[in-house]
């Protein structure tokens, strides 16, 4: 077995058990919609316990990439490997069963169900048999305990974002795809979001984070993958990426 280079980020995380295999590897994935290339030759890996940020200007293909991983779309070419299994052509619910959960950028709750039942759906159908965890703990984590008897459609936007995260956690995933959890939050709420992200990480989850709020990006992630026009233009620690010429060019022209 080839021994991969241990980057300092992996050593920092304590929950790591397997170091020689990536949890997720995206291998030369392409996706086009009509004439528009949304994702082009994308390749990257995520190690167990890692928090990887996905960054890029609007329309760079970040959400499309998440959708390709989650099975909403299937790539035109390339492969997505999760824990050694090829999930490229799997249906979304299969991928959820395997252990990938995702949140939506624009919250997509079960509008007419109670907050508690939103989580029950995910826990009943999404988690593996024999998983034991308390939905109340998840609700506590995202500060929704008081609203668990509310109908999801009546929640405010911030709470809906939290509900997205809670629902994803309720499937007890290995890998969690967070699409802009902090977007729309006020400055004052961001420390709490960072805190939640850290706690999720402590639970042993691997995270891919799409984010526009720089503070969250820089403080929460180990590594950043930068995309522009569907392609990966840079990869590295937050410090490295911020000084990369291509990244600066993509953002500031």
């Amino acid at each position, binding site marked *: 077995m080839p021994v991969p280079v241990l980057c300092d980020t992996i050593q920092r995380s304590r929950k790591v058990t397997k170091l020689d295999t990536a949890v997720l590897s995206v291998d030369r994935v392409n996706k086009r919609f009509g004439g528009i290339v949304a994702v082009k030759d994308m390749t990257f890996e995520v190690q167990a316990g890692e928090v990887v940020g996905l960054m890029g200007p609007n329309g760079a293909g970040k959400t499309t990439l998440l959708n390709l991983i989650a099975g*909403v779309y299937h790539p035109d070419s390339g492969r997505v490997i999760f824990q050694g299994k090829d999930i490229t052509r799997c249906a979304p619910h299969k991928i959820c069963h395997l252990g990938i*959960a995702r949140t939506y950028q624009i919250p997509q709750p079960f509008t007419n169900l109670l907050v508690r039942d939103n989580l029950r*759906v995910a826990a009943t159908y999404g988690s593996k048999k024999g998983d034991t965890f308390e939905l109340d703990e998840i609700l506590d984590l995202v500060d929704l305990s008081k609203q668990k008897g509310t109908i999801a459609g009546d929640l405010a936007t911030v709470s809906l974002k939290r509900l997205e995260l809670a629902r994803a956690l309720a499937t007890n995933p290995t890998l969690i795809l967070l699409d802009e959890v902090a977007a729309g939050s006020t400055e004052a709420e961001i420390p709490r979001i960072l805190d939640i992200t850290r706690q999720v990480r402590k639970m042993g989850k691997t995270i891919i984070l799409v984010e526009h709020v720089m503070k969250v990006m820089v403080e929460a992630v180990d590594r950043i993958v930068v995309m522009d026009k569907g392609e990966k233009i840079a990869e590295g620690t937050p410090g490295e990426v911020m000084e990369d010429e291509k990244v600066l060019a993509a953002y500031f022209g």
Partner: protein
Amino acid sequence: MKIPRLTTLASIAVLVVLALFPVIGIPLNWLNYLFSFFIILALANMWNLLAGYTGLICLCPHAFIGLAGYTMAIGTWVGVPFQVGLIAGAAVAALFALLISYPVFRMRGIYFAIGTLILPEALKAWFNFWRPVGNEYQGMGAGYSVTGVAGVTLGDTYWLSLAIAAVSVFLVYIILRSRLGLGLTAIRDNENTAASSGVNIFRLKLSSFLIAAFIMGIAGAVWYVYSPRINPTGGFSISWLLLPLMATVIGGEGSKEGPIIGAAIVTFLRFLLADYGAWSLLIQGIILIVVVVVMPRGIAGLLRQVGAYRFPLRLLQAAEGKIHKNLK
């Protein structure tokens, strides 16, 4: 809100009283009305399961009903007793639902609705030509009379309809308390989220589709035991769609009591307006529009909104408490 045994007892009592009606010799007209009510109730309950709880606006109940009716009618011509024919008809309806499920489930929302609307028309055309047993065009069109039901009394069909209505109510109740019900309501609210939360959308939709097709089929077949003559225009008539649709929408889509209220109103209207021919359709249409505009969640939704259930529920709870105390 756990209202236990008293409601169970009450529903059993109602069921027993209803079952005794033919024995105690109430007017035959009443039995006729109640028979219609039970059939519409069974259909409305199943339509509500599809539209109100699964989010499938299914516009093809008449396909299930016609197929089940025809299966039973043709069965009686080749010596199958109608009791077996009822089940066989329902099974054929469910099989048809299974066959069409893959193509129609590829469509969502309004496209699903239109896709399903075409099916009964196709079947109607098919049964206009297809005549597996009996002579060419005996009687009207490609119709069949149901033979071997001469000995069946109004009481018998009444009991059949009561049974199927009770089963439909109970079934919805059970489904909503189960894992299946949770998944169905999730699909109704947001299909994408349901999928990414691990719900196998196709399988769950199919379950509810098959259940509905089976029960609708058997209810339709019971109707053709009561009125033992089926032809393509009648069997695949759009009124088989409009009755449960109106009952569900007027009563309240997505509520357990909605179809019961709605079915009662629709049955009442049907007999009240029976003498006015085409006018009755117009009046029913106006009522439907008014309901949709004034109370989009139906009568059940309105009752819930004004808190009409609160007082009776509290009364019931108090009674329960007293009974429990006395028993101890």
